[in-house]
């Protein structure tokens, strides 16, 4: 077990390092930010002075080394705009993003898993076909578009819910539904096929031969087996939700990391972007780590090894 944890930790470090490296060079490709901060007709000397001040005149590899050296110590520099510490700016926005992603994930799970199970149980009936049809549509609808539709109906027309901002439960409703649409569809289809797969297994027939009623075969014997792949998918999707929140946050002006990153990218506020990538990469890795442990918990074959 210790072996496993150490190995996973090394993987996490590697993943975070690679993510930072890739993003570092990618945003440099988009040009240096000084042009954006100074008026277009600023004299050359002033630009040079500014670049020197921020260290953008040094060779790229020196900048990279410098950045990594500081990053290892948790220092991502200050926001080029406000001068505040980049990492703490990102961290301040974390709770809002988590709130959104976790609520969406939770909503998806409680809707989708029962629906998927029921669909498998009633396979090829009208119910099953309808639910498969709806999920196909659910996966095809673009997130931002669905968000806008919701705003149009519930905020603009019916005036039931606020269209943007954060802070209260009613602010949460529309963004969560928007974000959950995709995962619900994915989970329903995935749960259905995982269940169907398990239900055709020899060991299910064994339990049936022992006298177990169908409801028990499904709720007890098949569901636990299906949970193995479902947990992996859910963990992956939490990552997707955290990342995918960027667009939803933008649509609903939700005060989370996604919106911060979006704005910072537009402003070429590099330290914030890098600090954000750092945090998201770490979260991603940690989630996967937890998923692996859960996975081992439901799958005894892995646990023993």
């Amino acid at each position, binding site marked *: 077990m210790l072996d496993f944890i150490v190995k996973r930790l090394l993987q996490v470090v590697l993943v975070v390092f690679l993510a930072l490296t890739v993003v570092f060079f990618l945003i440099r490709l988009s040009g240096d930010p000084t042009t954006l901060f100074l008026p277009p007709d600023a004299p050359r000397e002033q630009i040079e002075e500014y670049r020197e001040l921020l260290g953008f005149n040094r060779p790229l590899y020196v900048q990279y080394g410098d950045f990594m050296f500081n990053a290892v110590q948790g220092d991502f520099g200050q926001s080029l705009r406000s001068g505040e510490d980049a990492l703490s700016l990102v961290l301040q926005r974390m709770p809002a993003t988590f709130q959104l992603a976790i609520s969406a994930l939770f909503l998806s799970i409680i809707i989708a898993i029962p629906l998927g199970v029921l669909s498998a149980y009633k396979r*090829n009936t009208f119910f099953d076909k309808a639910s498969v049809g709806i999920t196909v549509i659910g996966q095809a609808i673009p997130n931002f578009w669905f968000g806008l539709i919701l705003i149009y109906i519930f905020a603009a027309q019916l005036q039931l819910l606020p269209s943007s901002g954060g802070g209260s439960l009613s602010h949460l409703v529309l963004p969560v539904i928007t974000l959950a649409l995709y995962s619900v569809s994915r989970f329903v289809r995935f749960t259905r096929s995982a269940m169907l797969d398990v239900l055709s*297994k*020899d*060991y*299910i*027939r*064994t*339990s*049936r*031969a*022992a*006298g*177990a*009623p*169908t409801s028990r075969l499904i709720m007890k*014997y098949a569901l*636990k*087996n299906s949970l*193995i792949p479902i947990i992996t998918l859910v963990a992956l999707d939490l990552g997707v939700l955290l990342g995918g929140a960027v667009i939803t946050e933008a649509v609903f002006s939700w005060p989370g990391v996604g919106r911060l990153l979006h704005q910072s990218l537009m402003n070429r506020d590099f330290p914030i972007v890098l600090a954000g990538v750092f945090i998201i990469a770490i979260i991603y890795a940690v989630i996967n780590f937890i998923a692996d442990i859960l996975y081992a918990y*439901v*799958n*005894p*074959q892995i646990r*023993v090894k």
Partner: protein
Amino acid sequence: MSDILLEIKDLGIQFNTGKGPIQPIRGVSFSLKSGETLGVVGESGSGKSVTSLAVMGLLPEKKSKIVSGSIHFNDEDITKLSEKQYRKLRGNEMSMIFQEPMTSLNPVFTIGELLSEPLKQHKKMSKKERKEAIINVLKQVGIPRAEQIINEYPHQLSGGMRQRVMISLALLCEPKLLICDEPTTALDVTIQAQILELMKEIKAEKNMSLLFITHDLGVVAEMCDRVVVMYAGEIVEVAEINELFDQPLHPYTQGLIHSRPTNNSRKSALYSIKGQVPRPEEIGIGCTFANRCPHAFEKCLKETPPIFEKGDHLSKCWLQDSKRQAVMK
């Protein structure tokens, strides 16, 4: 109560496949007396498993249906039972041991959890009583460390041990009928012998009836009182065990007995029946075995033979027709 426990009459089973319906079981009839061990032999694809699944009411629900005949268990036609009534029989009055011990136990439950299922369904027992019953039955089937095994998972056990677990699962409620679908084919020879020995002991002790499915005539000789020979979804011969080996009437049975590897098989090349079992969709008129039969004559290709009775010895072959026998003499 009559002394016939299971009676199958004119059973026909249809499967719906992508290419349309097929009927892999046609007109199957046989009966099993209480306390008897009846062997069912036949090559792969002859319909042994499908027949036994039909008895257990475990045929794939949507894909297949019983299109003719009846299955009487304890004088009751079980093909007419509702799922709920059937459930009361399964694992209780009738149990089944499956072909594949490696895939037939749910990998995410402990042996103890799996074995408590039939007791939960059929017996009113406290948790403690259940545990005792489970440990007892595990000991009966020769599993050492039964107290620990109940907390282990299937993958921690060897194939032989898993099959013993399967047997104990089937035995927990002391069924009247035990169906064994090639319980030892997947095991190596020594383990196979142990398991067969065990089944014989248990059967003698509990006075169950056994429906023993196999393609191995050696196993049949060792285990069974009577034998049903199946070919391409039909029954071609039924006889008492010694009679079958001494005087097989159907050319297919003769071929099976002939192709059995014996101790001196090294001397001569192994005999085998030419050709293959026809697939259900290939079956036409005449005797299903005619195209592989060394004794086939015109009538075999044109007309399906009826069952000829010679006392208790039944065979479905035109050679047994008295007219044909007169001609031959």
